[in-house]
């Protein structure tokens, strides 16, 4: 793996941002971002713009894995190459929609948190753990409700676009699950790399979490626009999370009654 440049944000060393055109303003923390809790035209464009940059970041993480880990199993590299293509289609789909809604690239600040954390890790198993099994799986949870939100706010086209993206993301999470389990079964040391990766993400998230009362650049409380969603059990099952893993996640989210339901169904 080639050496890379780093940056320090609130005491945490992260990988330096990927290259962005000068029209983009790159933010490190939520208080440097813009977003609104409502569904005005401007807010809709910002949501799509942010999602577009997130997909671009995921493209870059998967691409960087291909050049950083030439000795990774070929079948895993094929999955990553396919992911690069998938994510690029997501970017272009969102960009097309952004332009249809009168937006432009660089209209709002962007953040590359997922790249700065994932691509800092020095193992392919660490990166797919954080990027695919955690970030992408988190997106999968959000995607369970996002399309309905767009439909309720009069935009079925964006809802359909998001549903198409969500279908692809399930496979990205699934292949990561497959390879994390396989690589750990082959070599127990890989378990340590997974634990280190998860811990690093935890440290970074805690360091960059906005203190209570933090507002963004348009004066909106960050906690009012933070995206969170309950565990999307159906899609996590499609992505080959085990029942035990889903139960643990539900317990972490105070949703043990769903875990019990899962047990009863099994």
């Amino acid at each position, binding site marked *: 793996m080639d050496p890379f440049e780093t940056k320090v944000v609130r005491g945490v060393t992260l990988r330096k941002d*990927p*290259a*962005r*055109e*000068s029209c983009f303003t790159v933010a490190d923390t939520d208080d440097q971002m813009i977003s609104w809790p409502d569904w005005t035209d401007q807010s809709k464009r910002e949501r799509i713009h942010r999602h577009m940059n997130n997909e*671009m970041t995921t*493209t*870059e993480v998967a*691409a*960087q894995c*291909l*050049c950083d880990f*030439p000795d990774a199993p*070929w079948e895993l*590299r*094929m999955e990553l*190459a*396919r992911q*690069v*293509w998938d*994510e*690029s289609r997501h*970017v*272009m789909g969102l*960009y097309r929609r952004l332009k249809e809604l009168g937006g432009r*690239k660089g209209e709002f600040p962007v953040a590359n948190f997922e*790249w700065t954390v994932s*691509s800092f890790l020095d193992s392919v198993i660490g990166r797919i753990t954080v990027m695919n099994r955690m970030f992408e799986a988190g997106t999968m949870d959000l995607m369970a409700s996002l399309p309905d939100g767009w439909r309720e706010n009069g935009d079925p086209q964006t809802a359909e676009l998001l549903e198409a993206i969500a279908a692809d993301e399930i496979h990205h999470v699934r292949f990561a699950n497959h390879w994390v389990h396989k690589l750990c079964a082959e070599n127990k040391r890989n378990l340590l790399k997974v634990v280190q990766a998860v811990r690093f993400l935890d440290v970074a998230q805690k360091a960059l979490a906005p203190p209570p009362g933090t507002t963004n650049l348009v004066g909106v409380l960050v906690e009012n626009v933070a995206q969170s969603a309950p565990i999307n059990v159906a899609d996590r099952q499609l992505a080959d999370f085990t029942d035990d893993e889903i139960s643990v996640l539900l317990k972490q989210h105070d949703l043990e009654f769903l875990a019990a339901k899962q047990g009863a169904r099994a």
Partner: protein
Amino acid sequence: MNVKQRANNVGTLRCISVFLMETLARWIPTTPEMEIKMLFSRHVWRMAQQADRLGRRARELRAPLHYTRAPRPQFMAALKQLAAVSDSIDRIDAFHAVALPTLAAAYGRYLAETDRLTDEPTVIICEQALTEIATMRRERTDWGSEIPKSRAADSHELAAVRQALAATEEIVDHSEQAA
């Protein structure tokens, strides 16, 4: 061309495909322009699929699965020179106007030299690769003004890459040390 020579060619074409896939992958985070990143991203998957098909064919030619054979050192050095290009327009041209035509010529030479009947599985792979190369070259212009056009004259860096690749007459290294 005997079976061993076919395997050497297939392994070399695979090596070049993987190298180009990795080069594009390396360029994606380091190229600022979004549309160019996305164009390179599309090509990553096509190059990966070409490498995969060649790798599977290698085993049918008595070589290991995904056999990868380094090309002649002079050609490899030229490829590394191409990978080091840093300007965005030069990168597009280096891939579309230099690497892809070179790769297409290598597939064309293979098709001209092999027996199309007994080696038909490789022939199909080569023909599919040529179709995909044409598609990749077309995508550059299909995206209209989103992708910048070539400069009127090559930069020094691009001209040097073009010259280095053109100077390599033979790509496949049949010596034992390349195995």
